[in-house]
């Protein structure tokens, strides 16, 4: 995939991103996934980094008007959904349908769980 840039955007220009001296900090796997999807699509040239910074900043600015602050990566995810639908990468209707399907899948008694399994005794001595 020669079209994929190896350029890794500088996250320092993202105000308020949770990080420590080593870099970005994620409180849960979904946060890291949401983070990586945005970086990946930018690297593939789907949108300019500055456009992302602007969309995210507008989500953060809108949140300032709310009585209680929204966790950072919820704003990140909302901004990601916005930029991806705005650029035509993702169809808004398809997104809602995919969410509904995932929700329905796990409500159905025989729903598909790719993680579901019942282990018995798990130590394998060798």
């Amino acid at each position, binding site marked *: *995939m020669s079209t994929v840039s190896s350029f890794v955007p500088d996250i320092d220009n993202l105000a308020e991103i949770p990080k420590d001296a080593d*870099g970005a900090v994620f409180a849960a796997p979904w946060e890291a996934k*949401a983070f*990586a*999807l945005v970086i990946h699509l930018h690297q593939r040239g789907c949108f300019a980094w500055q456009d992302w910074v602007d969309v995210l900043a507008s989500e953060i600015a809108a949140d300032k008007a709310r009585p209680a602050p929204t966790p950072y990566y919820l704003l990140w995810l909302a901004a990601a959904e916005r930029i991806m639908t705005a650029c035509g990468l993702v169809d808004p209707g398809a997104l809602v349908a995919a969410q509904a399907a995932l929700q329905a899948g796990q409500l159905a008694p025989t729903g598909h769980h790719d993680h579901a399994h019942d282990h018995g005794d*798990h*130590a*394998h001595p060798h």
Partner: protein
Amino acid sequence: MSTNHNRPLSDVEIRVKALESLLVEKGLVDAAAVDALIDTYEHKVGPRNGAQVVARAWQDPAYKARLLADGTAAIAELGFTGMQGEDMVVVENTLDTHNVIVCTLCSCYPWPTLGLPPVWFKSAAYRSRVVLDPRGVLSEFGLEIPAEIRVQVWDSTSEIRYMVLPERPAGTEGWHEAQLAALVTRDAMIGVAKVTHPNE
């Protein structure tokens, strides 16, 4: 008990998964590349929690005893929680046993202590082969376990996550906890590496 294997996804997890699945479907996202990116950014933040647990256990025998007796509670003492209800079990490497962890059927991983799983941890090759031929897999990681030492493979269950307490390297007597923690790697806590003295 709710579990990471089959607990319902939260609304936010569903939103992320829906987005990802559409992007993968359209060929816009390569799942392996996304995992590699997470690795790049996540640095050592996650594993650093586990490293602190290990360093404390090396320094404080009473803490080590609590850690081996009830991993979840002892890890929570250091402020590391966030598990989904599953228990942490810490398995200690000893003179006659080396431990390695896996989740054979998916990729359950003690992320509050070890961060996000490395890409290979989730690979079908690692998951199936480490059980069948642990010594062979470890040697591919550059870790040769002598024949007289038993290799024990710990497979995550729906309710238990494992973490390895590696051996403290020789020559680190008198070191501070922070110095010790800096030596502890993610791979050592998975069991595919040993902790080594920096001069080794």
